[in-house]
């Protein structure tokens, strides 16, 4: 691709998606004060529940595997084979 083609594509792109600054003078700003929304968001707890579930699940799985290896030591080579 030569420089002419590259410039032409860039020009097409600017035509298809004009710069935000050119459309909004002066600089774009939110239509409303967002601070109340930020405060409301701060009041909510982070949506990290799936991650906590995974941590709990990981520990349960590990405990299960340990229990099996203690109860059936002969299963250790088989477990290692499949790891």
């Amino acid at each position, binding site marked *: 691709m030569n420089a002419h083609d590259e410039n032409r*594509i860039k020009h097409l792109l600017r035509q298809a998606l004009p710069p*935000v600054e050119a459309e909004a003078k002066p*600089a774009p*700003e939110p*239509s409303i004060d*967002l601070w109340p*929304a*930020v405060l409301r968001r*701060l009041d909510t707890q982070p949506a990290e529940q799936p991650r906590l579930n995974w941590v709990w699940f990981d520990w349960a799985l590990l405990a299960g595997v340990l229990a099996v290896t203690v109860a059936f030591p002969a299963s250790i080579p088989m477990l290692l084979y499949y790891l």
Partner: protein
Amino acid sequence: MRSGSNGVLIREPDQASDLLEKFRQGDLDAFEELFRLHQRAVYGWILRIVRNPSAAEDLTVETFWRIYQARARFETTRGFEPWARRIATNITLDWLRSWKPESELSAELIADQTAVSADPGVTAEIRLKTAQAFARLPRGLRVAAILAVVEEQPHKEIAGALGISVTAVKLRVFRAVRLLRKDLERQGITP
């Protein structure tokens, strides 16, 4: 605090670092002051990427929420705005993952957007096809290209926001333009 030539209040360096330190310690008033100082810049940055004012407002709220949650990891020596831009970019990239461009890129929208500074040599159909081809690019390339080519943001700022080098930004822009050209050629549009 003193008044700048354009009437905007400017914080002295000591006051600024004091404010950032208070924010790090979880002071909500300090956080609000930082929000007031930087919300326009953060909103503008997000808007340049998503090009949807309503989504940009939601993502700005999410960004400042994330900023507050991550305040303990903020290094006061690094500057608040580049850090905020980085967080905003990550959140925006996540949002773009679930965004369905086909549902929003209509001929009417493209016509509205280009009404002001349209080149008469580029038809509405070509503009629409270019926008649709651009929407098909991978997210990482799209963000780098829109910020560098369309919004003409400094490569250094884009690199900082994406967490990559300036060379990587240039490479992404080059790849985006090349892919865009191939896509347009497939549709019968040659540059």
